[in-house]
């Protein structure tokens, strides 16, 4: 299977994950989940479990890599790191996202315009 582009590019979870890793550096799964929940102000009803398939897809695409390590509490956990490809990809995605967002924004502005 090819990683479904719409899943990763526009599916926000993947983007959130790599953005999180960019901001925070290497993290294990639970920390990523908590971080996403915190940033979204706990407004996002995230099933933490859905994180793992998303992480796997990102890893298969080569955007992140993983290794086994230890958590702050001394547990054996898998720690995910953004790869160079992932970093480049993130820049692209961000730009695209900005563009897409600005287009949508403009639409809202136009419809808001009374003229």
């Amino acid at each position, binding site marked *: 299977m090819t990683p479904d582009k719409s899943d990763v590019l526009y599916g926000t979870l993947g983007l959130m994950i790599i953005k999180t890793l960019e901001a925070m550096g290497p993290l*294990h*799964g639970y920390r990523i989940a908590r971080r996403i929940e915190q940033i979204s102000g706990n407004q996002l009803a995230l099933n933490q479990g*859905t994180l*793992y398939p998303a992480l796997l897809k990102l890893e*298969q695409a080569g955007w992140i890599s993983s290794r086994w390590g230890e958590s702050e509490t001394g*547990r054996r*956990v898998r720690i995910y790191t953004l790869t160079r490809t992932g970093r480049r990809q993130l820049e692209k995605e961000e730009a695209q996202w900005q563009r897409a967002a600005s287009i949508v924004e403009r639409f809202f502005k136009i419809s808001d315009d009374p003229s």
Partner: protein
Amino acid sequence: VKRAQALLKRLWALARVRQMDRDIDDEIASHLAEATDEYMQQGLCPEDARSAALRSFGGVTQTKEVYRQIRSFMWLEDLARDLRHALRMLRRSPGFTTVTVFTLALGIGANTAIFSLVHVLLWRELPVSDPGSLVQFTWQYPGDPPLNLFSTEQYEQFRDRNGVFSDLIGTAPIGLDPAAGGEPLQTEWVTGNYFDALGVRPALGRLLGPVDGAPGAPAVAVVSWTFWKNRFNLDPQILGTRISVGGVSARQAGSVAGVSAQVVGVAPQEFSGLMTGYRPDVWIPAAAHPNARQGGFMLMARLKDDVPIERARAEMRVLDRARIEELARNDPQWLEVTLEVESARSGFSTPLHQQFGRPLLMVMAIVGALLLLTCANIGGMLLARAAARQREMAVRVSLGASRSRVVRQVLAESLLLSVVGSLFGIVGAYLGANALVRIMTSGTRLIGAAPSLEVPIDAAVLLFTAGAAVFAAVLFGLAPAWTGFGSSPAPAMRVTGGTGQLRTRRVFGDGLVVAQVALSLVLLSVAGLYVGHLSGLRNRDLGFDRTSVLLVRLDTSRVPSGRDQLGQIYKELLGRFESIPGVRSATLSGMTPISGAAGSRFVSVEGFEEPPAARRRLMLNDVAPGYFETFGTSLIAGRDFQFADEGRARVAIVNQAMARHYFADRDPRGRQLLLEGDPRPYEVVGVAADAKYADLRSPAPPTVYLNAFQHSRLPSEFALRTSVPPATVVPDVQRIAGDVLNGASMVKVTTLTEQLDASIVPERLIAALSGFFGGVGVLLAAIGLYGLLAYTVARRTNEIGIRIALGATRQAVTRMVLTHALFLVCAGLAIGAMIAMSTRRIAASMLEGVSAEVLFPTVIAAVVTIGIALLAAYIPARRATRVEPLIALRAE
């Protein structure tokens, strides 16, 4: 690259599914533990914290399920879908599929067959512990093939005085021994340390130990697993039973009483002795042999740790020196004898290795080139198909299929073709390899049992075939896949008639044809080299006429007559043979040409001196009157032998090579010569033309013929020259032999031509195989060229239509197509000729005596290739001239 990476990762994932299952379990477990901790810090009791963690996680099982799906199964589904699609596409064009599968089956099958032979004969290691440290010993007398037989004294000397081996074992060459009441047994007489040194463990009971090898020890035997299965049905009661084998072949005079040995164990199933092609039934300590000290040993030793083979070789040569110097006192040529110590990783080197090792490697290279050619051929065809399906691809791409999906689908198609081709190829390879083995083992053999080589299609062979199949699929799928990758939807959709051929694709297609022509030229010129060599061996400078000679060997050992009676009987026999209608003359002799056997002695001639080191033995042959006439060797001067010479002064006939050396330009007739160890002189009465003697490959040696009827022992090789096909007189010969010689049996009936052919099996094999594959190669290249031109003409139909409409003549159109063809062929020939020239030395070195002169075979091959190529180009060229401008333009 990224996609390839993802694909690789998934493949990897499939390979270690279990590990990854454990990994995700661990990962989720620690996730839940972390979450529980956090909830507990928030003040929840452990149970509540745990369930809160589970709640926020969602379904654990579901997650694992989704995870697993993403991880590995999706690509399998994709593959299945690709294969289904490929199967549909292939079924839609059965003609193309059949041709391709057949071609591939041939290419991959040929590679598999040759690989399986090379694997069994050269590469497979002995199933013993650390086969890499085993070495074997050979020595070579100048002019003779290498021998690996050593005396018992040598064995003992080497064993006791070397400092480089941890073990030295001796084993007598395997012979068929008549067993008491039953089928003959293949017995290997070995030294007591045989199994210990090899590190072989018993399947049942015990193996031989040093105690059993001591002189006077009770005779014990270890049987092979196959023997245990076939004769005892794996019954453990075999231990303790007695096996009787005759010590010496019954045909040899003075046969001794058999040995009765008690079975003490069974060797493991995978162990079948140390010689490829021979599977001993039973191992018995050589000390138990009735003539224990007379037989020779083949030697195998295990190097001590850290002793390099060079050091072992040097030390053994020093050890053997004293013996060689002793022998050199009588025969200075012994000084040139050197001991060789070589790796025995895959067992004793046998005549099969020596004769067929290098030719088989050459054939391996040939079939490898053929596989490349096959790939280029199929690649070309797929390319044309891909072009025809360009619109289909374009539609798929524009509907949203990713490029890599399209490429992967093209590759799935080639993989499917390749796998189906390989399956047929494996069947063909199995049959082919065994047919080759029958040919290989059909050659001249002077001593010992016939080798029986089993060529299993085992894991190594299957692995090789799978590798070849994937390699081929990628190679021939590459061209269409690559162009598929570059297929951008817009232009492809726009083009209707198909004039817009991608430039890369055209160059690619042309390149594939050039490659095919080049490879076929290389194959043909190599074939020419070997076929030319073979025909030279068979026909040039033989010195005798090989056609229409029947050879019959009689076994007279049970005829009770004395020498004088036998002489009378033989004379009568020859007379009766000559009276058979269709028989021109009959004779008998000690040796017949190219039987492999030879007799030689030092000869001295009065008044001829030479330094001892320059002395060479001369070939001898005891012949009856009529020998020269029967074999078609002309007498240059003097007279033939006569029956009347019997009882008179001894006479000899020499050949020209002998006369040149010993008598220079003077007439040898009337001169005397002496044989080493024989005080009575022979008078030369005639000079015969030079004729090859024991071996077709070496030039006619200096030879002395003696009159068989002047000797106390009469030879019994009869030869008849016939004017009818030799086989037709066999019944008469049989009847007469039975009448005249009561109790004689015909041991061997053959023709001289067959005897010649049996001596040059490697040459025949490599000539036949290279010729066959060369023919296949040129045929494939022709098909490839035809396919490309036919496709080009079809694609350019409207261009040609326009040209004709604008006034181009039909000749001009034909010329256009043929020029294209000729350009491709010449480019291919130029490249092929360069390859042929640069590899000619390697090709020639693979077979003794082949000259590296490839210019002539290459020119012949080039002419053949051009002829066939023009023939292949003719049909599309004609089709081009038939283009009707109106119809062509209407199609636009």
